[in-house]
Structures are given as C-alpha cells and as structure tokens.
C-alpha cells in the first residue's frame, strides 16, 4: 500500500506546499475589500470613501454563456476516397460566484462522450438524438490578493498559454483535464508580468493499482519590448507517469500515433515505447501599432524521456489582423509545423490534422467577423507523415466554420 499512487501523492504534496505557502504569505499579500484603508494625507478636503463589502446579487453572480458551431469539412485523401461531412457543436455553460472569491462552473457539450478531443456531432445518423456530456465541472478559489493566486479543482479548461496562431500541437483545446491547478501572477520582477501555473491531472484512476497521471507546469513572462511591441515567453512542461498502471492498457488503447509495443504478441499494443516528459517553449511577439496587428510565434517541443529518436517538434507562424471582438474584424494566419512521432502524447494532442503526431504540414486560414457575435472561419490543413514506410504524400483538410457565441 505504501507505493500506491506515488505520483499523485507527489503532485498533491507539491500543490499542498504551494497552497500553504500562499496562505502563509497571505497577511503580506492580502488587501481585502473589507479592510478600511488608512488615510495617508491630511491635505485632502474631502473624507475618503470607504469600500463596501457588499456582494453582487445572485443574478449578477450567475454568468451563463453558450456557443454554437456549424462546420463543413472536406478531406482530400491519397489512396482513399475523399470525404465530406457536416458537423455541429453546441456548448452551454455557466459560472456562479458563491462568494467574491469562490466560483463554480460547469459546461454541457454535444459530441461523442468517449472522445475527449472533439465535441462535434456529425450530422446524418438516422436522426438519432445527440449525445450530451459534461465537459467542465470545477471549483475555483481566487481571493483577489495582490499576486492574484488561483486554485482550481475539478474538470476544467487547460489554462496554459499556447501558441497564438495554432496552439493545439501538444494539448487539444477540447481536452478538459481533471485534477488540481494553482496559479500566481507577479508584477514586481522587472517584467510586466510573470504568471506561474502548476498542477496535477488524473489520466486514469484504477481501483487496485497506482494511477496514471500528468504533472504540469508553465511559467509565462510577458514583457513590452517597445512602444507597440509586446512579447510573451512561455515554458510548458508535462510529465506523464505510470501510463500502464498495473499492466492496465486502457491508456495505450487510446493511442493515436505514438510508438507502441506488443509485448505478448497478441496483436494488441501493451505499452508505449517512450515515456513522456514534454518541454514546450512558446514565444509570441505582437506588434499592434498598425491598423492590423501582426503576431509572430515560434514553438518548440521536446520529449526528453523519449526512447526513440523522433522526439521533437517545432512550429513557426504569423497572423495579421484582429480577432473578432467587433463586426468586420478579420484575421489571416499561417503556421508551419513538424511533430515527430513521440514528441507529443498523442491521446491529448490535436485532432485537426489528419494525424495527431508524426506529421509535417501547414495550416492557414481566414477569420471574418460578419456580425459582432457571428464569425466565419475558412481554413485549410495540409500534412504528410513525417516518417512513412511508403511514399508520403500531402493530404488536405478544408473547413468552413460558422461560429457564434451568445
């Protein structure tokens, strides 16, 4: 029993230390609404207003949100028939502030509940009803102290800074992890801001054996380099543990391209060849002095625990324009990327390209906001296997999305 769930215990212990440190620092960090500020100057002719610790009403604390997407997709494949399909996605969520500091949130989504990488529902299934799942349910504590500490527990959005052009190479945006996360912001370190997130996600809990888990962390520095030129420097790290807990192959069963090995010769993979400790630095430069802001990004991926040579990935991209906060905004972008076979952990990597890993390719698109809350997004993804036994040829995926949020 003493060796059970060692990694989760480590992660939990680390988070506990982090939380304790925050609580110990609380007296020096906290300046709360219910504390009366002391007057510092006698020469002001008016008495200073005192803050009010009055909460918002229950209605004001409830914040619903929803979005809907219609997608037309056409795949141009080599050696297989082309495919086109129409898909929709509907997401309905809400957050509720229990107090000024504590928030609960949840979200309902369409899509196959067995597939965490997608919440889309393909149209054309004999008019069967759609599946609906709960892809977020979390509790967040954010006391509003000076360093803005946040603790989140439950199933929530992976909050790391990502490549702003196309940022799903390592972690698909639809994948909502389950676990704990702590975040802090500092603004007194000679840079505009330093954000640090650290957390532990449960990958697979098993009854009798130790669990599969991933420890995650990311420091992000944001710094204005000159007038109109902003930069962000993020270093993500993902350390996966015990992916076959007690010989359980369920995690291997959802592999989408990593190298695996069949130990017993039954034709079913038993283990990943590599372990995964993924370093993911991302740099983004934003120049917004012009009418249409320019963003340049670069990303590198290294799995330093890989047992094969194909352990790296990289991407470089460029965008021009503004995302659609207002009608008639537009954004054009392009990114080139290479992701080698064991550079990323394929079950949580993107599913937009035709391969989750072991590919090189381009993604390019145009977003146009034709109403304040309705956007058209036309994009193309072209890729070919990075390492292939036969000849590798480009395959295309063309998409038109109509996105609306309300």
């Amino acid at each position: 029993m003493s060796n059970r769930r060692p990694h989760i215990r480590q992660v939990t212990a680390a988070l506990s230390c982090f939380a304790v440190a925050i609580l110990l620092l609380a007296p020096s960090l906290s300046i709360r609404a219910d504390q009366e500020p002391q007057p510092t100057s006698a020469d002001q002719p008016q008495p200073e207003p005192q803050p009010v610790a009055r909460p918002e009403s229950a209605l004001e604390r409830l914040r619903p949100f929803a979005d809907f997407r219609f997608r037309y997709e056409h795949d141009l494949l080599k050696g297989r028939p082309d495919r086109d399909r129409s898909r929709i996605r509907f997401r309905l969520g809400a957050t509720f502030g229990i107090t000024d500091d504590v928030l609960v949130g949840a979200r309902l989504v369409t899509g196959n509940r067995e597939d965490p990488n997608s919440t889309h529902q393909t149209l054309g299934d004999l008019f069967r009803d759609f599946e609906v799942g709960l892809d977020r349910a979390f509790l967040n504590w954010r006391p509003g102290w000076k360093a803005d500490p946040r603790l989140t527990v439950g199933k929530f959005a992976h909050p790391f800074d990502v490549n702003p052009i196309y940022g799903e190479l390592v972690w698909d945006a639809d994948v909502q992890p389950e676990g704990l996360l702590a975040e802090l912001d500092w603004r007194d370190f000679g840079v505009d801001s330093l954000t640090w997130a650290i957390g532990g996600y449960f990958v697979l809990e098993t009854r009798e054996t130790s669990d599969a888990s991933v420890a995650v962390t990311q420091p992000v520095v944001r710094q204005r380099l000159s007038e109109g030129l902003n930069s962000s420097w993020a270093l993500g790290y993902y350390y996966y543990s015990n992916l076959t807990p007690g010989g359980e192959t369920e995690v291997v069963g959802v592999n989408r391209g990593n190298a695996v090995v069949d130990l017993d010769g039954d034709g079913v993979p038993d283990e990943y060849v590599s372990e995964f400790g993924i370093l993911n630095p991302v740099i983004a430069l934003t120049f917004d002095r012009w009418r249409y802001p320019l963003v340049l990004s670069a990303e590198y991926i290294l799995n330093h625990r890989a047992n094969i040579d194909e352990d790296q990935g990289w991407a470089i991209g460029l965008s021009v324009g503004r995302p659609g906060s207002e009608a008639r905004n537009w954004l054009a972008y392009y990114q080139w990327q290479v992701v080698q076979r064991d550079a990323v952990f394929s079950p949580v990597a993107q599913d937009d390209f035709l391969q989750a890993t072991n590919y090189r390719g381009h993604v390019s698109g145009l977003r146009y906001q034709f109403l304040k809350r309705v956007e058209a997004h036309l994009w193309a993804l072209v890729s070919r296997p990075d390492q292939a036994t036969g000849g590798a040829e480009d395959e295309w995926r063309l998409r038109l999305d109509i996105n609306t949020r309300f």
Partner: protein
Amino acid sequence: MAPADPRIVTRKKHLMRIAGILLCLGAYVALPGPTALAQHSKRPELRYVGSSTVGLFLRDAEPVYDRVRFVIDTAPESAGGERAILEASTDLAGIARAPQPETLRAGIVATAIGRDGIAVIINSRIPVTNLTLGELSRIFTGQVRSWREVGGPDLPVRPHIVGTDSATRDVFRAAVLGAAGYAGCKTVEPDAKMLQLVAATDGAIGQISFSFLDDTEGVRAISVDGEAPTTTNFDYPISRPLYLLWREENEQARNFARWARDLEGQRVVMRRFVGFRVVGSVRGKPTRPETGTLLVYTETSPVLDGGIYYYPHRSYEILTREGQLIRRVVNHRGRNDENPTAVHLLPGTYLIRAESQRRKNVEFFATVEVGETTQVYVEELIGETLE
C-alpha cells in the same frame, strides 16, 4: 542707582547664550541646508504669468514637482498671461477661462488641468443647505428680500459680489444670471475678504472660488441645484475651466503641463479644484440604497476556447484617491465571461488603475454616486480623454 547683582547678570548672559544656541539650532533645522539651496537654485527657471487661481496650483505643485524653479507673477491675471505667452515673454501662462481663438491659432498649446468651482457661501446662522440657480438669480438681481422666500428664516438677504476686476464675478454672472445684471449687491474687494464679510454679516450670501475656501468660522458653502460644492463633483454647475498655455518648443513647460494632467499633478489639482481626470456617473437603474455601482469596461483579452474567441475583460484595481489599494477586481467570472463585474461602493471618488496592453496601465478617477451606475469604457478614455 544700585549696581546690578553680578550673579543675576551672569545668569542673564547664560540664558541668552542658551537662547542663542537654541535659535541657531532651530534655524539650522528649519531652514534649507546649503545643499538643498544649491540644488534648488540649480533647477532651470520656469516663468509663469497669469491667473492667480492657476497660480495657487503652481504654488501647491512647487514642493512636489522638483524639476524646475517657478517664478510666479499673478498680478496680470488671465488676460495678462494670455498676452505674455503670445509675446513669448513667459514660459507658461495660466488662464481661468477658455483660451481666445487667436491664441490657439498662433500655435499656443492649451492644456486643461481642471475646473475651478465658484462656491456659494452664506452666513452659517442661516439654515439653508441648497439653492437652485433660479433662486440665486433672483437673489443677486435684487428680487428676493427675505430668506423666507427661499425656505429660510425671516431675515433680510444681503447679497455680496466680488469686484469688477475679478474673473469670478463674470463667471458667476454667466452661470447664474444669464443676461441680467447684478442689483442690490454689496461689492467686496479683494476676493479673499468675502469669507470674513459673509461670516460677520447676518443674512449675508456671497461667492468665492473653491480654492479660497478654508475653515473660517461663521460661513458655510451650500449646494447648488442639489450638487455639492466639492472638488470631486464634476457636475457642480458654477465652474470655469483652468488652462495652462505654453509653446510647443518649450520643453520645460511641456513637461510640466503633461505632469499636471498626469496622476501626480491631478492629485495636486484636486486639493483645490475639480480634477480633470474624473469620470462622472451616468443615470442607470437604481441599485441599492446608500451605494452606487461601478462598471469598468477594461480592455478585453481574447481567449481561444475550442476555436471560438471569447473576450473577458482585464482586471483592474480600485484605490483611494491617494493611491492606497482597496480592491483588485478580476472583472470576469471564468474565461468565457464577457461582462464586467459590478462593484457596489459607497459614494465617492476612487482612483482606478486598469490593465492595458497598449499602455501597460491606465489610471483615472471615477466618481460613484448613490443609486447610480458609473460606467467607464477604458478604451474610450485612452482615445479621447487621457491622450
């Protein structure tokens, strides 16, 4: 005559020596040291000519703004200051009204630094707390003889008005009397005497710049049209703009004018005047009794959530006017929340420090009033008010 007791003479000499030493010590402590004097004299000189009201601001600013040494001449008042800057015989001019069009056409830069309110003051034995502009007009045109006619006791009304050389006289007439002229008023010169005269005269009413209000006993400033005479009330109806005039090529003057519009300068302005960077409230739905609501539409920060951008507002801080942090407002509840957080506050003026990607931080004052919602759009402030 008997000779003085030598013991008494010695004691007196001794006491005088001690007093002399103490005097020297006091002077050493109280007077600026040679280093401070040398530093003060090393500062470049900035000559000011113009309004005595704006001159008060310069005198307040002198200990805070240490990049220049002011040479202040307020005798020529606003008109003389405007002439002096046109003739380039001063670095900086101050006027307590809008600049003449020909001044601006000549390339002179006008920087508004705040508004000077003209307070209505009454003898404190009269239990009246508010008068409308219409009532004031009838009082200063001689149509009201007794305080009873405007809700006060049966006492004769004794209106006082500042002299013809004072800009306060014209501003008050323009705001209160319109085209009519003063009638039945006693003239008071100079302005500063108004406080003592109103305090000493039963039934007296007068007016004076906010900048001259002090703790004089027997006199009280009253509200006009329900607006309190405070340096944070941008809606107070009897007021005039205060401007600094300078030439573009004068770097010292330009730096000072910009400082006056910046937070540190505005804190000095608001000791006596209504600050320029105060955002007033708008009529909104009633919130809670005794509180007002603050809604700050800070810049948004796009969050890509499953391929769809959401735009939560950036966080901001609420501080006291002196800059002491009261509360940090995250300004969104979760990454998908696009509505700013409503903060219920007691009425007053707060310093707001909002995050801005373009300018790092944007700072301004916001006034919260009972039962009203103060809505602030930070991007509009950046574009229209604070530039």
